[in-house]
């Protein structure tokens, strides 16, 4: 079962990378209020049950894919 995990800096956490992207976009002439940079992890889980796959993915996020002190995560099951 394929899934996409989105890892983001939590709201309120300083994101210097996002700020640099934001100011660069402005320099290109885009009207941008804010940009934040996260990470995408595509995972192919060896599970057929979406509920079980989600449980596995949550544990992956808590234990490795995200650092819960500073990052939030979102799991999208692709099928």
């Amino acid at each position: 079962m394929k899934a996409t995990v989105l890892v983001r800096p939590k709201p309120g956490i300083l994101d210097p990378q996002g700020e640099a992207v934001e100011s660069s976009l402005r320099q290109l002439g885009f009207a941008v209020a804010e940009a934040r940079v996260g990470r995408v992890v595509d995972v192919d889980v060896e599970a057929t049950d979406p509920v079980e796959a989600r449980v596995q993915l949550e544990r992956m996020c808590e234990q490795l894919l995200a650092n819960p002190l500073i990052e939030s995560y979102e799991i999208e099951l692709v099928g």
Partner: protein
Amino acid sequence: MSERARIAVVTFPGSNDDRDACHALELLGAEPLAVWHGDAELPPVGAVVLPGGFSYGDYLRAGAIARFSPAMQAVAEFAAGGGLVLGICNGFQVLCEAGLLPGVLRRNASLDFVCQDVDVRVERTDTPFTATAAEGDVLTIPVKHGEGCWYAGAELLAELEAAGQIVLRYAGANPNGSVADVAGVVNRGRNVMGLMPHPEHAVDPLLGPTGGVAILGSLVAAASRIPVLA
């Protein structure tokens, strides 16, 4: 003080300050023992140093992968038994990711890699890593990192301040934007410490400042008092 302190220095793929750490420890009277990341057991030692570098290419997050190495499992057990562990730069990142130290190290606020001498103030001397310094001492030690911005939420930070776990703070300009100017912390048991500055690069007057002697010298002194179990 009797025998020379035996101190393990762990080399991960991508570590690059392991030899400097060994050299500095030797200069300060210890016997360094090189440990490979694949070693599942530590030799009998009084302390362990996790050196700087870019273990596992900084994949995912700096320090995030090293905790799965056999050597780190041994280091975690060593620390759990009260063993002294010092993480320098990448070693600090590894210890935070492994959950052996509080907080996390993030990309420098400036986004720039910093490489310069910095002044750090000794905030606590009741640790085996700072016992030979005096409170308030300002040590000049170089930093060289891209992800040294230590972060902890307000609640965790208050807890650490109250427990006296903030051991070193940048005394001059903060090179990375860390919360509360934190440069080094210890765990609750005070046997595990991490710091971003590199004391192993500051022990020989020929090469510049010698602020690292206070840190590594304290560790060597503490490790030499510990009976080593074979």
